[in-house]
């Protein structure tokens, strides 16, 4: 029955009085791809952090590959094991790599962590991974400061894949890239999914990217899931007012913005400021 690599049920996170995530549930099937769409304050990044164990849920369960991971683990062995189940690629290519490590060293460290392989086996695998993400020899031996944003993201993807995870969380991983580079990385991600069968959880506010890369989507607004379904049906025929507003706000050929019709929720422009 459970063919799902990731199951999240009733997830809730409170920061003091603020409820960042409220009763969020979703599943990701084997080789599937789910988008979590929302703007700032939607709770999408908090959800990602809870799934990978960087944040502790207030309530709810998270199950990956059949194993519970609802709370961050203290044990190093458990954290390593979880690292082989779910990995993450962050948004900012400029701070997601150790500035003192070459791409090869970065990947090597992860390989050493998860596998007890001898040096030559590791070298082989590093070459495979850098090839998979489209980095050449020179780039693999370079320090991050010699690499462009797109190249750094490739290194970050290779590092995540070195752990051979079942699920890869892409936290706005292409948002900071130039349009032409973004297209290359999106193609790369599609190729990786085809060749490795990894499942994606894409956190994004960019509906066009979501359409390109994912099969299913949940839409978050202020910590709550307001709509869910297949990407095609939610984007072609949105039901919830917020989803409609979101879709209408995306620039595309022939798009014209109109005032008032698109007043952003939570925008306190009209509200009374404190005295």
């Amino acid at each position, binding site marked *: 029955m459970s063919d799902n690599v990731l199951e999240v049920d009733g997830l809730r996170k409170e920061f003091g009085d603020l409820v960042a995530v409220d009763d969020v549930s979703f599943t990701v099937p084997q080789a599937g791809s789910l988008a979590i769409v929302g703007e700032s304050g939607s709770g999408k990044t908090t959800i990602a952090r809870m799934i990978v164990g960087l944040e502790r849920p207030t309530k709810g369960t998270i199950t990956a590959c059949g194993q519970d991971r609802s709370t961050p683990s203290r044990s190093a062995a458990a*954290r390593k094991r979880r690292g082989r189940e779910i990995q993450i690629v962050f948004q900012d290519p400029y*701070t997601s790599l150790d500035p003192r490590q070459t791409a090869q060293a970065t990947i090597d460290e992860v390989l050493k962590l998860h596998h007890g392989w001898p040096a030559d086996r590791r070298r082989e695998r590093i070459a495979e991974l850098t090839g998979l993400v489209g980095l050449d020899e020179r780039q693999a031996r370079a320090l991050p400061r010699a690499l462009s944003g797109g190249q750094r993201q490739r290194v*970050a993807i290779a590092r995540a894949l070195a752990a051979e995870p079942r699920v890869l969380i892409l936290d706005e991983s292409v948002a900071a890239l130039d349009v032409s580079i973004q297209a290359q990385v999106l193609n790369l991600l599609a190729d990786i999914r085809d060749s490795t069968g990894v499942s994606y959880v894409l956190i994004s506010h960019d509906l066009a990217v979501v359409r390109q890369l994912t099969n299913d989507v949940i839409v978050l607004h202020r910590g709550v899931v307001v709509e869910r379904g297949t990407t095609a049906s939610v984007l072609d025929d949105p039901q919830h007012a917020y989803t409609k507003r979101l879709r209408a706000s995306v620039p595309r050929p022939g798009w014209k913005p109109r005032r008032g019709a698109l007043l952003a929720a939570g925008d306190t422009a009209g509200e009374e400021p404190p005295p």
Partner: protein
Amino acid sequence: MSAAAPAPLVTVHASRARSATGLLRGTGPAGIASAAVIAIATVVAIVGKLVAPYDPTSANLSLNFIGPSGGHFLGYDFEGRDVLSRLLAGAQSSMLGPLAVVIGALVLGSLLAVIAAWRRGAVDAVISSVVDVLFAFPGILLAVLAAAVFGAGLTAAATALAIAYMPYVARVLRGAALKERSQPYVAALEVQGASATAICLRHILPNIAPLIVAQATTMFGYAMVDLAAVSFLGLGVQPPAADWGVMISENQVGIPEGYPLPALAAGACVVAVVIAFNLLGERLFERAQGAR
């Protein structure tokens, strides 16, 4: 300083400076000059006792306070010993003492800073409070206390100063470590399952290392002054050992009598080296900040 350095030392220093320019990139002419002075002092600390033209300990009271003459470029001190030889021999304890202080403060300070930055929360609060309390103790006060409890000598003084300097290291490094810790690459390593120790030692420390080096360099200068003061007070290195601080103390009687050279020469050595360390430390600090 005692710039009447024999020719061989000058050549050695020049070639060291050339090979070290990579390390000194961005420190400017002041940085390079300071590094040169430090290099000379280090070399003298190592070989001083061997190249001293005369025995630094052989006293001859009938020669006391005679000015520069014959082969004695700086004259004789209050006990008739060759001043230049004592300066060269004294470099060792004068440089070694601050080195011990700096190493002690750095190791202790980095450890506490990284642990506080990594664990945050209660652990950070406790460590920060302890460090704050230590801030209240001036180094010399602790050194005097240590001398009273453990007896006068370099070891007690150096240990006390290391503890007194540790808070300065801890404070600066904690800030830098906190910043590193919040970077996504650290989070990525945590998600990979890397251990806290591995992340701190292999990633956080190396990335704050430039700051550590800059701090250490400046601190050396302060430690040297403090230790010289402690020795001057008779609580550090004990006479008749050659040590710049001791020399200032011993020879101060010569100043009102018109024989300032021995005391001033020793003082000049301390000043020159301290300025060099401070200048270089400042430049390194600026470079470390600029690189962030």
